[in-house]
């Protein structure tokens, strides 16, 4: 794939400096509802840690009271105590691990649902420009990275910090000088971690980006695999995949290299600290300043002291990777929703000219056309947020209730665009679109969706049965299936309407897919029916029958259809001829033929034998 493609899509790169606190605060807001569980986890953690910390102290007692003076008495008791402490520690560990993982899972559940909900409400243009694979990556592996942080990170970091503080206190209490010796390496460790952090974060971010790219490529080439095969391009696809795969591997190897320095580095510091301790401590034991048991306990504690430090620095990395992911997650959550999902401010931004009209809520005056376009200008939004070429240039037309309008015109004239705007998939740049006298921008989304029923040019079916697909539209299954001609083919199948249609409806022929999506549109009871070349792949006989049946249920309804076949166009009340984004002719079939314009030419060509 050429480089150009990279710039077309919304950029994935997120630049954040000093955002960490904000990100963390947002993450914490997801944790807030689980206060109870967190308290349990922390409680278990503190108690478990206390039990665990008791261990070395008991050993110290064993050495100082039993072994050094060589008395057996009390040994069994102390060991029993040791075992009890260990059992307590493990019981609390279980509790803590389990609650923490539940917290993590719940938070993730919530974040996923939030992201998905947000996704449903993003403008169509977002999906025009964001490859499916990329969106999927955010909802899957980015979210998993975050989960890792919560399950294995947040609480256990708090835990490690508790242990750290606890041990530090115990050490200081036992012997302040030796304690300070143990802490001597801490500044060095902090410096080391900070130094590497920047690189690790950056590498993490790049890796996630590359992964998203890889997934987008996979997703696309798997759904277009038939094309790859038809053109014998398996080799080329694999080569292009290789490039992305290599990029990803290179990035992950870079990260691995950083980690390879990181972990042994931290460990080395810990070993140095223990050596220091032994050196100093040894001298002081020899000098008689501390007891032998104290030194042994110190060594045990020091090892326990550095394991949370290793742990924290390890979690620090998970944190880095999770922050890289949460940037991307919050980016989705922060993408502005499409305007139709926003609450209309009461009496707010009414467009000019609406104020003098009587309240349209109770019974619209019959004079209002069902569909009206007034000088509509529109361009598809580009990736950088600006508009591109104007696709519609001053489109105006009106269609009255009960009428059938047909839009005709060359491909790319803007027919589908008109229908997209009618359904408010995009926001227009200028002008007004009115349904029954009301600006589409003022009709609440649910009402608009109930009012208009659309058959898309590209018939999309959900995997599942035919019945499920039709019922996604509305309740009138039987009638819809009959009228749309679905029963013509489904009736002869053993499975009938329970036939599985496959992914995107791939187990049906294209014409059959069109009929099913037609049925879906008819299964509801819309005031306005919008058909975008709904039967373009259907044979003339079926089409004719569908039209015959449709005529009966269409009475009283307004419909706007895009069609190339004259048989479809002929039955309409008003024909709108589009040419390069402009309405060039409007009228009935007869009128337009008589005026000998574009329509006349289109029409005479369709049947001209040579």
């Amino acid at each position, binding site marked *: 794939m050429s480089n150009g493609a990279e710039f077309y899509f919304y950029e994935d790169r997120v630049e954040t400096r000093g955002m960490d606190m904000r990100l963390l605060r947002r993450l914490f807001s997801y944790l807030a509802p689980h206060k109870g569980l967190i308290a349990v986890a922390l409680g278990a953690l503190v108690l478990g840690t206390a039990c665990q910390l008791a261990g070395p102290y008991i050993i110290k007692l064993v050495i100082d009271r039993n072994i050094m003076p060589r008395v057996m008495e009390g040994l069994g008791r102390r060991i029993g105590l040791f075992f009890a402490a260990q059992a307590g520690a493990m019981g609390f560990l279980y509790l803590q691990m389990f609650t923490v993982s539940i917290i993590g899972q719940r938070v993730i559940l919530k974040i996923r649902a939030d992201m998905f909900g947000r996704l449903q409400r993003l403008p169509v243009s977002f999906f025009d420009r964001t490859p499916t694979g990329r969106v999927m990556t955010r909802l899957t592996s980015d979210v998993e990275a975050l989960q890792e942080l919560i399950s294995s990170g947040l609480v256990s970091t708090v835990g490690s910090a508790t242990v750290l503080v606890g041990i530090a206190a115990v050490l200081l209490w036992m012997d302040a000088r030796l304690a300070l010796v143990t802490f001597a390496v801490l500044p060095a460790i902090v410096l080391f971690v900070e130094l590497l952090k920047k690189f690790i974060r950056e590498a993490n971010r790049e890796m996630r980006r590359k992964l998203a790219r890889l997934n987008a490529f996979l997703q696309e080439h798997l759904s277009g695999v*038939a094309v790859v095969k038809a053109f014998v391009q398996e080799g080329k696809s694999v080569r292009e995949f290789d490039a992305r795969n290599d990029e990803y591997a290179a990035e992950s190897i870079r990260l691995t290299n950083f980690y390879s320095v990181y972990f042994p580095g931290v460990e080395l510091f810990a070993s140095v600290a223990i050596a220091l301790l032994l050196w100093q401590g*040894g001298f002081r034991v020899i000098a008689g300043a501390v007891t032998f048991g104290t030194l042994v306990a110190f060594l045990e504690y020091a090892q326990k002291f550095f394991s949370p430090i290793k742990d924290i620095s390890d979690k620090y990395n998970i944190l880095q990777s999770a922050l890289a992911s949460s940037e991307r997650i919050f980016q989705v959550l922060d993408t502005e929703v499409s305007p139709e999902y926003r609450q209309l401010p009461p009496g707010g931004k009414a467009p000019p000219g609406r104020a003098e009209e009587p309240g349209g809520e109770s019974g619209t005056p019959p004079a209002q056309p069902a569909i009206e376009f007034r000088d509509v200008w529109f361009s598809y939004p580009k990736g950088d947020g600006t508009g591109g070429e104007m696709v519609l240039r001053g489109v105006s037309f009106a269609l009255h209730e009960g009428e059938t309008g047909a839009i005709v015109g060359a491909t790319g004239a803007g027919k589908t665009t008109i229908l997209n705007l009618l359904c408010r998939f995009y926001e227009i740049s200028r002008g007004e679109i009115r349904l029954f006298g009301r600006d589409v921008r003022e009709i609440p989304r649910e009402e608009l*969706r109930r009012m208009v029923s659309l058959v898309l040019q590209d018939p999309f079916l959900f995997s599942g049965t035919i019945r499920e697909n039709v019922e996604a539209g509305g309740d009138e299954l039987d009638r819809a299936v009959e009228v749309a001609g679905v029963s013509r083919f489904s009736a002869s199948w053993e499975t009938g309407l329970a036939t599985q249609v496959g992914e995107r409806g791939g187990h049906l022929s294209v014409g059959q897919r069109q009929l099913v999506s037609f049925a879906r549109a008819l299964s509801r009871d819309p005031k306005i029916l919008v058909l975008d070349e709904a039967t373009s792949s259907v044979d003339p006989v079926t089409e004719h029958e569908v039209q015959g049946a449709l005529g009966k249920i269409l009475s009283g309804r307004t419909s706007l259809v895009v069609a190339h076949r004259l048989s479809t166009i002929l039955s309409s009340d008003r024909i709108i001829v589009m040419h390069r984004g402009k309405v060039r002719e409007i009228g009935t079939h007869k009128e337009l033929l008589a005026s000998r314009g574009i329509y006349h030419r289109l029409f005479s060509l369709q049947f001209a034998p040579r």
Partner: protein
Amino acid sequence: MIRDAIDGISAPDGREQVVRAVSWMVLFAVLHGGFRYFGRRGMLVTARRVEMRLRRDLLSHVIRLPLSFFGRTPTGDVMSRLTNDVSAVWLLLGPGALTLAGTAISYVLALLFMARINVMLTLVSLAVAPVIVFTSREYGKAFHRNHRKAQESLAAMNTTLQENITGIRLVKAYGLEEREEGRFRAACRDYYRHNVSVSKTSAAFHGAIGLLAGVGVAFVLLMGGWLVIRGRLTLGGFVAFNAYLAMLSFPTMALGWVINLVQRGGSAMGRINEFLGIPTESWEPVLSPPRKVPDAPFLEVRDLSFAYEGQDRGEALKGITFSLRKGEIVGLVGQTGSGKSTLFSLLLLLYPVPPGTIFLEGRDVSLLPLDEIRGAVSLVSQDPFLFSDTILANICFGKDVPDEQDARRAVSMARFLAEVEELPDGLHTVIGERGISLSGGQKQRATIARALCAGGELLLLDDALSAVDSETEQEIFREILSVRGGRTVLFSTHRMASLSRCDRVLVLEEGRIVEEGTHDELFSRRGAYYDLYSRQMITRELEAAL
């Protein structure tokens, strides 16, 4: 080392011995760090390379699997094996193996040192080992079960998600947002449930292992204390023994994690192998491929029947027989679902074809290399699919290197050039996924240009102009006809005007060819063809009378 230092404390030349031991310790720590660095790097980087290789091999295998595989396997499933499962294998080979190696080394070394200090004590500390092994095995099984369920629900969640994103316009048009949210949430909740049970077992295992390790330590304390008191063990030895034992506590606790990785990686590898085990479609050609028969028809189909697998809808094609001469332009018509598209995909061998049914210039295609046949046939499918790339790259998809000259010619033949040139970047304009930023007719013409650019001798147009207005359709047909020298065309359409131009028409009905002849012949025969198109004819006559 610790033992030396500690023993040194009680020795006469204490200080010196302590210093010596400590310096050795630092040296060892540095060496250890160095080894860890190289070991880690070596293992992890190698694992990454293996991951990359595995993913590549898997893709290159999967992409060569027959189309029927993609018909029955959701894209989400294939994706999840190429991503999640391959990553699970990396986790096993990289961090998993590293931890395992670390664990094994720590165990061996620690046990050796411990044995050197006191064999008895070592045996005592190992008393709990069998229980640990047993617990681990049971845990592994439980994890495997739970994990598989979690994996399945993850795949289901991904499929729901992917379907939602690809059908987002429909979701919006029908106000299905809430329904979709419900579906997705249900899938997520399912996944959540399985994950919780995974973590429940995992937490229990951790606790149990910790407890067992505690038992071990308690034994050692008891026994060791007794030994020291009896003077059979030095104090330094006792302390060092405990230190070694403590060193083992981390690897033991990490056992659970390693088991998870191994189970996960193992079942991922199983799922990957499942795909790798499916034979790819490019069967080996026989040693001496058949030679062209001089006066054989260009394409001949003999008694071809076909049924889609896994469906009980009967045969989509039943005993199809026809032939095309070189340079002929033949129309294929029939009702929706009569098998036109099926026939086209069989001519391209996208589905397995029985031997002796399709002949290209007299050669049985089942004996020819797949790429030769697909190179000779260019299909424009009914469902236009474009990649999110530049128009140029899409048009030249069938070539190894894009050639702007060729692309321009093909685009112009497909009557798409004027519109492309109006775009700010012309041929270098990037179109969205599936060509989303093009209109339906533009997409179709782009796919036609792609097929023309590939330059196969047999051009198959499967209802490829349904979204194109009739004016443009006629122009494109004129173009294709004007260069008909050598190129054979089989096309399906529902518009009569184009049918009246071609040499011959085949009429399909429920998977059978029921009529064959020129437009005029068929029309006057008043059979199936007449039934299909009389309506269009009548409208035309009606209009002529106006």
